[in-house]
């Protein structure tokens, strides 16, 4: 943890978040489902907290899933959607599931519980909708609130510091990530294109992974759904759904939307962003979340895939400094002294690498001088 803290300091100049720190965040919430009331029946915002404005309520009504929107027909199916409201810029994360029969007995009721976060609160959840979703599910439990009061109290969510062990164990487990799949998704998102990913079983884990590897400023604008049927009424950048069908084909005709079918066999090709994905994978498996967070938060939203690949190489070289021999360290210093950085992040990383390499050389020389003459 000390090494992580030191690197984070070097990258940012700011102290990393303390390990094990848990913050309670009070945020606005709303419920969208089908109910019968004195003034009407059907799908509507059944309840909302006072801080949600009229414009936000309209947008929530437009985008929330209604009848037969879940792509999985299992009783325990859940869905996630996340988007930024165009009216106020707040982040909305929605947890949807089945909640018994609809009151008119024409199909199952879809129940959606959503939370709205401003930028500061979203940052406390690592700018990751999967993390918000997990906290929301933990806070609201399994039972839907079908007779919600029109005015809900704000909801308290638990934001756990990403540097703590508690955080690491609470993250959705993704034992093996498909580097090629993550790389392909990242490539499309970096190009600001829309993407539909078909046939992923561990979509929550994959999405969490994807957001971890995205520059924060870009991740903040990525809207996504998991487990909902594709609909142009819910325009999102990244959709995870089960399989291609006529509904999706019709909806995407004439649109600039990429399709990634994980079940179809693809000819072997180089994984895009392989170095970057591998770096994030290694850091993630070693619990270096604070460093990932610090690094990705420093990147501009205009960053390209080639920039990420170069940054990954620099970080990989920086990680190797501790074990490197003096000649390797000198090679690194020469290499990066001559290199031209294409971004400010790259420039800072290069400087830090050169500094660390020099320090390591000095340290090795000092250690060698301290050894008894027989051991030199």
């Amino acid at each position, binding site marked *: 943890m000390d090494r992580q803290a030191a690197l984070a300091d070097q990258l940012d100049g700011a102290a990393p978040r303390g390990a094990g720190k848990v913050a309670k965040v009070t945020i606005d919430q709303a419920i969208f489902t089908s109910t019968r009331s004195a003034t009407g029946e059907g799908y509507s915002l059944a309840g909302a907290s006072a801080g949600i404005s009229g414009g936000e309520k309209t947008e929530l009504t437009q985008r929330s899933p209604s009848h037969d929107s879940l792509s999985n027909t299992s009783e325990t199916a859940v869905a996630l959607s996340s988007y930024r409201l165009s009216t106020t810029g707040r982040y909305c994360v929605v947890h949807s599931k089945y909640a018994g029969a609809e009151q008119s007995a024409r199909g199952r009721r879809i129940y959606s519980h959503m939370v709205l976060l401003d930028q500061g609160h979203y940052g406390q959840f690592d700018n990751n909708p999967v993390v918000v979703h997990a906290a929301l599910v933990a806070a609201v439990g399994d039972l839907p609130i079908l007779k919600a009061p029109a005015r809900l109290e704000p909801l308290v969510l638990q934001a756990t510091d990403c540097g703590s062990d508690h955080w690491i164990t609470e993250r959705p487990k993704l034992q093996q990530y498909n580097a090629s799949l993550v790389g392909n998704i990242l490539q499309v998102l970096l190009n600001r294109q829309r993407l539909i990913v078909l046939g992923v079983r561990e979509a929550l884990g994959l999405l969490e992974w994807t957001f971890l590897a995205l520059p924060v400023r870009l991740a903040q604008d990525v809207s996504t759904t998991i487990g909902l049927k594709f609909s142009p009424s819910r325009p999102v950048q990244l959709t995870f759904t089960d399989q291609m069908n006529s509904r999706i084909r019709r909806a995407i005709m004439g*649109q600039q939307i990429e399709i990634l079918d994980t079940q179809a066999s693809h000819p072997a090709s180089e994984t895009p962003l392989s170095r970057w994905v591998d770096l994030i994978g290694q850091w993630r498996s070693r619990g270096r979340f604070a460093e990932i967070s610090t690094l990705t938060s420093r990147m501009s939203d205009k960053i390209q895939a080639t920039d990420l690949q170069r940054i990954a190489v620099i970080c990989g070289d920086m990680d190797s400094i501790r074990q490197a021999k003096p000649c390797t360290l000198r090679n690194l210093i020469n290499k990066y002294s001559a290199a031209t950085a294409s971004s400010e992040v790259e420039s800072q990383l290069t400087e830090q690498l050169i500094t660390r390499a020099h320090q390591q050389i000095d340290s090795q020389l000092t250690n060698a001088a301290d050894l008894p003459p027989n051991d030199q």
Partner: protein
Amino acid sequence: MPRTSLNTIATIPCLICEAKNSLKTALCNNCHAPMALTHQYAAQQQEPCIVSIVGESNVGKTVYLGFLLDMLAQRAGKFDAVPKGAYSVDLQQTVISHMASRTFPPKTAMEVDQWHWAYYQVRNRFDKSKWVDLIMPDMAGESLAAEIATPQSFRVINSLLGKSAGLLMLVDAGLAANGSSRPDFFTLKLLSYIDTIYAAKQDQRIDMPIGIILCKSDYCPECFDNPQQFVKANLNRTWNMCENRFKNVQFFACSVVGSLGYATSEKEDYVVPIPLHTALQGVLEPFEWIVKQL
């Protein structure tokens, strides 16, 4: 051969909202209405009339429209009717097949891309009058309610109602007869919304034909004797609004279900209505009237 730049990619305006879309688009980028309607209109070279079926959620719009289209397809009354495009048959097939299985069709989702749209050519076959092109969308009641509450939240509804040549407004007569004020208030809100769309001056009345259909009249058969009197007695707010602001309103009673059963189970806390058989009454008359007004 001249090169086509991005600026000269062929576009076509949506028939409903007039937003520009590329020729390959299946659903309008703006309102999500099917572009097949626009392509059909372009092929027919005849401007279609939009007849919108509106009403509260669970009033019976899907069932009514499904049966109406099926009757037209079977040359009911004096009509010849031809569906333009296979998609126009989806709604009637869904309704007929579900009712034949003694279940009501599924709820209409709020997402516009999930609505059924019917494009039919209709004429009176006895006097060989000109074919009239009709577009009849099956909207979700909740979307309509949301649009009424916050105009422009569902732009496609605003566009549809603004372009409609006529409206068939469904009201739950059973609820009204039971003393519920909900149908009256919803219809009043809907009429008021239409009033604001047309923005008629205070001394002018809107002359768009509106057929108010009292659905589920099997619950209150007196509707069939005198629908106008029923509205005056049980939907008084609606009656007054029609008198004040609309010039061309007609009242009809309608029923689709012959008898209803109710099913439940010990584990569930809801009751499922089962349409045991259909007995159509008053389905075609509102349509006949509104076609005459076009």
